[in-house]
């Protein structure tokens, strides 16, 4: 027999919805470790406040409390003292972040390398900006362009920062449409890792050296899509070294690995660490390394490239250096920029984070925001003929 729904049915339904909404809300603070970690981080953030002699720190000793009149008075007293003793440099405005929500934008879907680094650093960023809540937000689309646009166009209040592919440097140089940012103008916070890139070829294939590639009538390289890092790298390497490349694009994630095992493609370019399993399994051999570090037994692009292509080689090397960049919106107040930079620097020095990163296989080689910004601006500063060359290279099929 059909029964009319009663009010208590509705009550159950609404409670279930409320529970779901709570779950969704918790999901929104994605990737935050559970409470125990938070309370230890609160204890720990009290310690640096005592240890560091910097004038701004004592005011932040109680992360969760509303500032009592006594504490509010302290900063007012401390700051006038601070200025004469410190050099005329900017003070990190950590107090601003108390009680605020910081958005950490990731320009990819959940689950990739950029996402992994973001979720690794977010809780520690929160720890070193006491009172703040750091939320990881995935804004994917148009090959990281939408995410980068989002960070660039956010309000310049210091509450938005994020990570994206430094391949956007090449995209910006090539004048890709849809780019609404200028990488030179971002406030660079840090670079988390340097990752040399490796060109690998199938172990069972006929190519053993770069010279073999140059002599071949056509080399099939696998890439993710036009404009992707894998594709641009392969095209630039081919242009530098002078081998004839045929790009086969459309391999998402690690499908190119399988394609190599099938003998469908001859090779691909990716980070050396991601290629290592393939090499160790005996399916691939590394034929070239791109980056400042050298790998035993494998020639470096620097050695093999002709002298006239030096500008392109430098560009590719700087790309390998800037593996995991973090940037904030241009125009944010300097105090807040410094606060973000300091917090990220401390996060990447935190032994807990470093241990987790090592467990997860995420290399960390911290580079300061200032150095990152210099590298980015240097990479963007190319002569017109080089820019034209880049345009030609990446728009070739």
């Amino acid at each position: 027999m059909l029964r009319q729904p009663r009010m208590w049915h509705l009550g159950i339904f609404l409670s279930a919805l409320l529970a779901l909404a709570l779950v969704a809300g918790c999901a929104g603070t994605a990737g935050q470790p559970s409470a125990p970690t938070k309370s230890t981080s609160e204890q720990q953030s009290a310690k640096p406040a005592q240890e560091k002699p910097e004038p701004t720190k004592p005011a932040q000793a109680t992360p969760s409390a509303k500032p009592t009149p006594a504490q509010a008075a302290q900063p007012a007293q401390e700051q006038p003292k601070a200025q004469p003793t410190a050099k005329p440099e900017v003070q990190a405005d950590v107090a601003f972040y108390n009680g605020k929500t910081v958005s950490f934008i990731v320009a990819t879907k959940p689950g990739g390398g950029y996402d992994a680094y973001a979720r690794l650093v977010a809780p520690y960023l929160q720890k070193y900006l006491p009172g703040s809540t750091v939320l990881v937000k995935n804004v994917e689309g148009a090959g990281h362009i939408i995410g980068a646009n989002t960070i660039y166009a956010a309000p310049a209040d210091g509450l938005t920062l994020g990570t994206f592919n430094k391949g956007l440097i090449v995209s910006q140089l090539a004048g890709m449409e849809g780019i609404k940012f200028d990488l030179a103008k971002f406030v660079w916070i840090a670079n988390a890792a340097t990752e040399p890139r490796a060109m690998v070829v199938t172990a069972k294939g006929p190519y053993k050296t770069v010279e073999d590639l140059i002599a071949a009538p056509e080399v099939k390289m696998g890439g993710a899509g036009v404009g992707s890092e894998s594709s641009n790298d392969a095209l630039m390497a081919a242009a530098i070294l002078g081998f004839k490349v045929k790009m086969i694009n459309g391999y998402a994630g690690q499908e190119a690995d399988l394609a190599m095992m099938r003998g469908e493609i001859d090779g691909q370019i990716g980070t050396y660490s991601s290629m290592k399993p393939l090499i160790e399994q005996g399916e691939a051999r590394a034929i070239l390394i791109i980056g400042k570090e050298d790998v035993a037994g494998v020639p470096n692009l620097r050695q093999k490239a002709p002298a006239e292509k030096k500008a392109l080689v430098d560009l590719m090397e700087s790309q390998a250096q800037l593996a995991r960049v973090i940037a904030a919106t241009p125009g944010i107040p300097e105090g807040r920029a410094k606060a973000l930079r300091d917090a990220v620097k401390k996060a990447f020095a935190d032994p807990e984070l470093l241990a987790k990163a090592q467990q997860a296989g995420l290399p960390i080689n911290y580079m300061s925001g200032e150095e990152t910004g210099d590298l980015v601006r240097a990479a963007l500063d190319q002569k017109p003929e080089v820019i034209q060359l880049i345009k030609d290279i990446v728009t070739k099929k």
Partner: protein
Amino acid sequence: MVEASLQGLAAVFVWPNFGLMILGALIGMTVGFIPGIGGNFFLAMMIPFVFGMNPYAAFALLLGGHAVVHTGGAISALLFNTPGTGPNAATCFDGYPLVKKGQTGRAMGVAMTASAVGGVFGAAVMIGVIPIVRPIVMAFGPPEFFMMIMVGIACIAFLGGSTPVKGLAVGALGLLLSMVGQDPSTGVVRYGFGLLDLWGGVNQVLVVIGLFAISEMINLALKGGSIADQMAAKVSGGLTTGMLDVFRHWWLNLRCAVIGVVIGLIPGLGGEAAGFLAYGHAVQSSKTPEKFGTGMIEGLLAPESAHNSKEGGALVTTVAFGVPGSSGMAILLGAFLILGITPGPKMMTEHLPLVFNMAWTIAIANIFGAAVGLALANQMAKLTYLRGSILVPLVLLFAILGGYGVRNSMFDLVIVLFFGVVGYYMKKYDYPPAPLIMGLVLGKMAETNLNMAMDLYGVEFIFRPITFVLLLVILFIVGLPLVKATRAAFGKRGVTSAGTTA
């Protein structure tokens, strides 16, 4: 081998692994239920908790949840025509009409049981397939993927129901929509209208939420009444009928589970397609294809079975090759690294009990998830009798949240609402929505793989053995009805056809 299997099974029931699996399954089902948040989000969210756990406990949590995400998604698909996860769109095709007829209990019974059976099958196959997975994965490349997808597209022709022309028209519209965005092979943006947000194409989750959920809510708001507008038999009776239905159609269930496993097994096909291809197969192999879309049991159990079994398949490739078979597996790989395990051939020798444990966890979590779903079915079914004036705002809220959650983008909501209106008019003029989704999902994959096949092998790719066989299957599928119709036409005129029988 058997010993390792038993070891793996025993580890499932050890505390805290069992508790973690239950916890993971409950969270996974809830996350699956909420539209816009899918399985990948669940995994990405759970990974930080995995640090420092032992592998058995960690996989109990992760796989316990991951295995049942689509089971949870099926519930919101059935009740509100809002798929909880992308692949659950196929659940809406025939599941929701069943609910509208008042047969919610039966629908839930079918969906939950088919999910459980599919999931268990996928896990069971996982063990058997591992030795032969390498030759299978090596044999399938872009040409084979293209042909497989074309088989699915050919099945779209059958989705038109009583008006095949309308079905084809809508399917063609879906294919057209799939062309929006950046062509991966040439980088040219098509139908972008200068909007950056359209570069990635029209996201199928958005179209589904609009076409199914929003349009249904518009309909409900205009019509009044509640979702289930027909009197129904006792709800709990419906449940058992549903469960038995799955076993009555066991052969179809098995075939769809196999389709799911194969698609999960082979990276490059994308798990999204599993439900749709299984649905297409159910339609094409049925004696009454025109009834699909009105609440056919086969139409509901096919996708449910396939998208739970595909995870078993995807896990095989991930474990055996270290190459993820689906996007969820890609995230799971991160967990492997955190736990210090390198997936790949070495896993089979060093960690065999763990591999079995993973299969057992998937199987048992699936059964648990289905049991939870069935237990809640009665109460959830009552929701469908709620007045529209209460339900419409709530479902709209979920739908909007779901649409926004895909990419944290307001633009996406415009797409959702646009397709809501389109869906309303489609329903009004009796155009079936399923072909549009199938065209949209399959079109993109077909084009990418066709381009890659041509780039790799030129036109000769058609003559690769598996590809050619699949081409013949397509010709058969498309040709058979034509032959039947021609013979029927001859028969009517009284002319007997020479050579006979099927």
